[in-house]
């Protein structure tokens, strides 16, 4: 068995999914109206990756979890007030845009630089986790670009499970079409895993974990390196929220028989 993994989770903030988003044009490219005021959450798929990382670290003695997060420093600080209470990790903060309109190539370059600069990083023990896509850019390419920049050969997408074997090899379940899983066995670290939802529930808040994490979070935020992640080579012509309001017909005070008949007729059309 390995001496433990160094699990680096890449994840940033996204607007709370319940917020209404309105695009606007800024000098830096497209943005969101009141972007800095919108409540944020840890990107959902990255959050699953973080919880899976913590679970794996708990099972394999000597493992440690890092969270590499690219976002506006002030918003990262707010985010950490909740995320830090979930699972133990060491934060590596990068001060820059977390906009969904930034270029994944630029984001991957900045993340790769931050991962490579983690003190004591041992590539033979390295597992890089992240979400299979973000809820902002939703491109699903950043982790592969990061994988290439770190010169890692093994990448898995849409991961729901990792099982480490006694010889340090591991089995991975990746989502593929039609509700199926592709099962693979990798000889061991290093590897990059882009997670789907995994199988774990969100851990409850643990104030003790929060206190330990926050000792490292504040210094990490203080020394967060500024980075200029922008729209790269993308020339945006237009960003819009297409009209989607439908004229909903409400059918009420009608018997179940009549409703069922109407539904069946509609299905059969």
């Amino acid at each position: 068995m390995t001496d433990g993994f160094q699990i680096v989770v890449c994840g940033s903030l996204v607007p709370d999914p319940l917020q209404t988003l309105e695009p606007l044009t800024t000098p830096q490219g497209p943005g969101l109206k009141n972007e800095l005021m919108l409540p944020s959450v840890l990107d959902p798929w990255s959050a699953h990756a973080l919880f899976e990382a913590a679970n794996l670290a708990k099972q394999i003695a000597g493992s440690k979890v890092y969270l590499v997060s690219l976002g506006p420093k002030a918003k990262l600080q707010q985010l950490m007030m909740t995320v830090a209470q979930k699972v133990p990790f060491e934060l590596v903060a990068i001060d820059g845009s977390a906009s969904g309109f930034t270029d994944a190539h630029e984001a991957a370059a900045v993340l790769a630089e931050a991962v490579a600069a983690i003190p004591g990083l041992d590539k033979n023990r390295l597992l890089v986790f992240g979400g299979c896509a973000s809820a902002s850019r939703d491109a699903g390419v950043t982790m592969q670009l990061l994988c290439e920049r770190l010169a890692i050969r093994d990448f898995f997408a849409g991961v729901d499970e990792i099982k480490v074997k006694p010889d340090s090899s591991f089995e991975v379940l990746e989502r593929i079409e039609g509700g199926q899983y592709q099962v693979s066995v990798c000889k061991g670290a290093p590897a990059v895993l882009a997670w789907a939802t995994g199988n774990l529930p969100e851990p409850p808040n643990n104030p003790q974990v929060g206190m330990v994490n926050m000792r490292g979070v504040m210094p990490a935020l203080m020394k967060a390196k500024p980075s200029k992640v922008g729209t790269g080579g993308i020339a945006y012509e237009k960003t819009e929220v297409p009209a989607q309001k439908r004229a909903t017909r409400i059918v009420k005070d009608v018997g179940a028989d009549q409703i069922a008949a109407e539904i069946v007729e509609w299905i059969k059309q």
Partner: protein
Amino acid sequence: MKILALFHTQDDGSLPKAALEVLTTAMAIKEQTGGTLAVGILGQGAANAAETVAGCGAESFLTVGSEAVAQARYATDTAAATALIRDSGAELVLAPGTARFARCLPGAAHRTGAQIDTHIVSVKAEGGQVQAQRWFYRQRILGTFSRAARPWIMLADAGVNMPWHGASGAASPKEVAVGFSDADLRTSVTGVRSPAADAQTIKPDAALLFVAGAGWTKKQKDGQFHIAEAGVLIQDFLIKAKSSLGSSKSLVDLQSEGQETLNFMTHMNQVGQTGSTPRHAKGLSACCHGEEPHAVGWRFINERRAINLDPNCGWAQGKADVVYVGDAFEIMAKVNALLS
């Protein structure tokens, strides 16, 4: 402009439907730009697959069909795609956004110095400029954009174009040599895990998507839980209506939190923010009150109907075409009886 339509084969050696949809787009872009089209195929039986699209009018066919790409593995697929892109000299690469290509083509983009965009829903060329459309913020904002850098790789979403139909014939494909290293073979694909045939609830080709919400697992009007009954009703409906099954996040979360719920429902069924955004002609939801299934998960459902106890449910109003106010248990039982 040099265009490469890049495909992979399936386990049976055929091309996926999504590839044929991309071929339709690639031929249109060729027409619009006056460019040239090459077809590149990787995977088991690539040369035979090239014959099936020989009538598309491509100037050349390139394949990588070696044993190493029989498995859908990142390292070997990335190396093969890189070789095909380089050999074609393509400025524009169009590929289907399948799980296999979504996994490996970003890596190939890095190795070929290309830019890459995914989930493309529209691409067209006007005045020599290629413009693409995709959704941002999980189907909330539609963006139209272009890139000056070449090569530019685009992965198109399935279901947005008609599949190409044409004659097969002699493609005379060129097998492109790829030097796979031992490091590329550290991972072995050992198989595919499918749900049992009678438990297969995700059917991408189904005309109808049925989305179940957490309401099925709540206390009903008699003050009791009826989870087993809900399971029977839903599974019965899926079989009779030949429907695919989606779920709200709250319903599948109940399961991971250890609560009793519908045992055939997994995170794979989830639609919405952290789930899928499937494409079906029709969608019917029941006991579903969240925004995400309706706004995000239903983005690409054409006709939408909902069964809901609350006529004022803000998330169904304005997002569904019809909201039936009633007890889903009662209505679905009668629907099943009528479908029998």
